[in-house]
């Protein structure tokens, strides 16, 4: 499982509230990613990080922000959750520049009412 954990695993929140999802890895992966997975859309990249304090936007970044203050932690924040952000969120990590394989965390199911 490449030592990747996510918390919380399930969360129900209300529209307009802030939400932070945490991804933690124990194997010193340089690259980390946040995806969302929705029926009919597959996995879509939200944000990614290529090192501490180095992040960039993915395909569906609107409404999301990220932070990476330590190698092992990558946080995804929904500043003001909306119902369209109800989804399953996966964190993934990749070891180095020369390896393309990403390993995934167990996922967080987020419901925004």
């Amino acid at each position: 499982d490449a030592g990747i954990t996510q918390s919380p695993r399930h969360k129900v929140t209300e529209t307009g509230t802030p939400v932070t999802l945490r991804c933690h890895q124990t194997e010193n992966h340089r690259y980390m990613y946040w995806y969302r997975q929705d029926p009919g859309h597959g996995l879509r990249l939200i944000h990614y990080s290529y090192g501490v304090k180095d992040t960039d936007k993915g395909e569906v970044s609107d409404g999301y922000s990220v932070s990476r203050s330590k190698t092992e932690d990558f946080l995804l924040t929904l500043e003001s959750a909306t119902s369209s952000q109800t989804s399953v969120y996966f964190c993934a990590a990749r070891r180095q520049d020369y390896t393309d394989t990403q390993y995934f965390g167990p996922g967080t199911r987020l419901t925004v009412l």
Partner: protein
Amino acid sequence: EDKVVQSPLSLVVHEGDTVTLNCSYEVTNFRSLLWYKQEKKAPTFLFMLTSSGIEKKSGRLSSILDKKELFSILNITATQTGDSAIYLCAAYGGSQGNLIFGKGTKLSVKP
């Protein structure tokens, strides 16, 4: 626009059948093609292909890449109910150098 297209989107077979899942891609700066299996949890890595014509094999699963025609196939022989899952194809490349995923093929294996 970079894209990865998988077909079929869903497939129902019986135990013992052989199945072929397809993945075509149009991705700038293409570097590799990856297959994942997703049961009711996180995707798990199956194969990574970088060279045309070289088959990768793991048990009853095998995969091959054609970089000229821009596609890959995943074969599963003698299917079992435990093979029921969504199979995801992803191409590494694009302007940001990341994985671009297809929408997946949902395989259901009936006893």
